[in-house]
């Protein structure tokens, strides 16, 4: 794995509604290597989602700098794929048409969209096949189960081959079995493509199962208080969570977050 830094967050603070407003994050430092899968965990309301928006360039930091791919983030990045807890698929579009949405918006794809459509559709079909949605191209989102919608949402986040994938509790609303299936789906896709990924989650098992590094955030105003490397071999499988190394790390993380929550009270 390349150790070159792809995302570099240096001393970033974010105030809501002006410098006197609520502090969402404060003095936040964090870096993610190219091709790395980084997880961010923390007590609820610690500013994890603010961190996502900051990195994606959707909100400017009040202080500090953020660099992605060596370039300072000044506005919305165009190399980012995003998925949230809510799949946010468009109900009037079929699964295939939903996957085409980013290609109708992102430059340079949009200018050649019509000409390249057959190729895009072939790519989309391959992607859907990989997440186990082969044959569901023409279904509408409301004809899919929650887990299937989330798979499609993941495909939509990846269709334009983003160099940075940002996931904000993408599996939070799913039942345990579906969630674990999707961990493996995500892991397999990540291992094949090695897109840099930031996964925001409050599920410690999920963080340890998927990530190369786990960053722990403090309660609001959020900052990174510690970072752990996860050296478990890949691909991780349903047996991995029963390894001593895995459970030890989950225990350590849980203890850390308990302390952070206590400090906030």
């Amino acid at each position, binding site marked *: 794995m390349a150790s070159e830094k792809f995302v570099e967050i240096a001393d970033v603070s974010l105030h809501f509604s002006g410098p006197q407003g609520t502090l969402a994050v404060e003095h936040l430092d964090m870096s993610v290597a190219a091709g790395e899968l980084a997880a961010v965990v923390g007590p609820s309301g610690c500013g994890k989602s603010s961190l996502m928006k900051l990195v994606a360039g959707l909100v400017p930091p009040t202080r500090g700098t953020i660099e992605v791919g060596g370039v300072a983030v000044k506005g919305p990045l165009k190399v980012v794929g995003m998925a949230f807890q809510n799949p946010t698929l468009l109900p009037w579009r079929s699964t295939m048409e939903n996957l085409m949405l980013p290609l109708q918006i992102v430059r340079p794809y949009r200018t050649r969209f019509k000409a390249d459509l057959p190729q895009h559709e072939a790519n989309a079909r391959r992607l859907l096949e990989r997440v186990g949605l082969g044959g569901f191209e023409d279904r509408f989102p409301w004809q899919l189960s*929650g887990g299937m919608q989330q798979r499609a949402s993941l495909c939509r986040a990846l269709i334009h081959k983003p160099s940075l994938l940002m996931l904000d509790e993408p599996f939070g609303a799913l039942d345990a079995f579906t969630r674990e299936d999707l961990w493996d789906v995500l892991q397999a896709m990540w291992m094949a493509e090695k897109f840099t990924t930031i996964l925001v989650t409050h599920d410690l098992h999920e963080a340890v199962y998927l990530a190369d590094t786990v960053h722990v955030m403090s309660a609001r105003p959020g900052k990174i208080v510690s970072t752990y490397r996860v050296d478990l071999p890949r691909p991780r499988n349903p047996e991995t969570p029963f390894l001593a190394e895995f459970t030890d790390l989950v225990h350590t993380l849980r203890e850390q977050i308990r302390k952070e929550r206590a400090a906030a009270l």
Partner: protein
Amino acid sequence: MMQNKWLGRAMPYLTVLTMLVVWELICIVFAIPSFVLPRPSVVAVSLYQNFNTIWFHAERTLVTTLLGFGLAVIVGVVLGIVVGSSQLVYQGLYPVLVGFNSVPKVALVPLMVVWFGIGTVPAVLTAFMLSFFPIAVNIATGIATLEPELQDVLRSLGASRLDIISRVGLPRSLPYFFASLKISITLAFVGSVISETLASDRGIGTLVEQASANFKIPLVFAGLVVVATLGIAMYAIFAYIEKRMTHWATRTVEFGIGG
């Protein structure tokens, strides 16, 4: 189930029929003279006898209503997009719109006669003024209630405001739009008839006004029946288009969520 379905289909007709029978009976039992409240059968005869005259006026009402309504759709959609996509415009314009909508349009008809003279223009404009508001409000609501997460997804792809509105905002507000069309078309009829009543030489409003001045009350009712029929027909057309265009909004879940 089958029986219920057929009964459901027949219900509107049965309801109208029942009302007409009750109305007829009341008029007979209380011996109400037809220059006060004509029996439905008398209205029907009047409708039949004066059909050419009524149609002469109804045609004009239909045209002015549709013109005013068409104008309302164009203005309402544009206004809705602008108000729905900008918080600042929303804050600035909304009180003005609500204020304007609260003004009784009847009061504006004489003003428009001063500006445009007696005839079609005041009727078209009254129909327009009465019917654009629901369209604008509904389009604005559809655009303004876009999920913030979806906006984040789109903005992180480099989508411009125009992209967001055209790809997501407008398709998303289609169900709201069609709902508002059904309300607006009936309001447009109200508007044009009001204006014709006050200042026109042709139209159902004019006919009703003249007929009541001459105590031809059955003719008044015949005219109103025609307006109501036109309103129902237009409503049905838009309901049909709505069903075709926005099936995704009135979907039935085929298999459950979760899992």
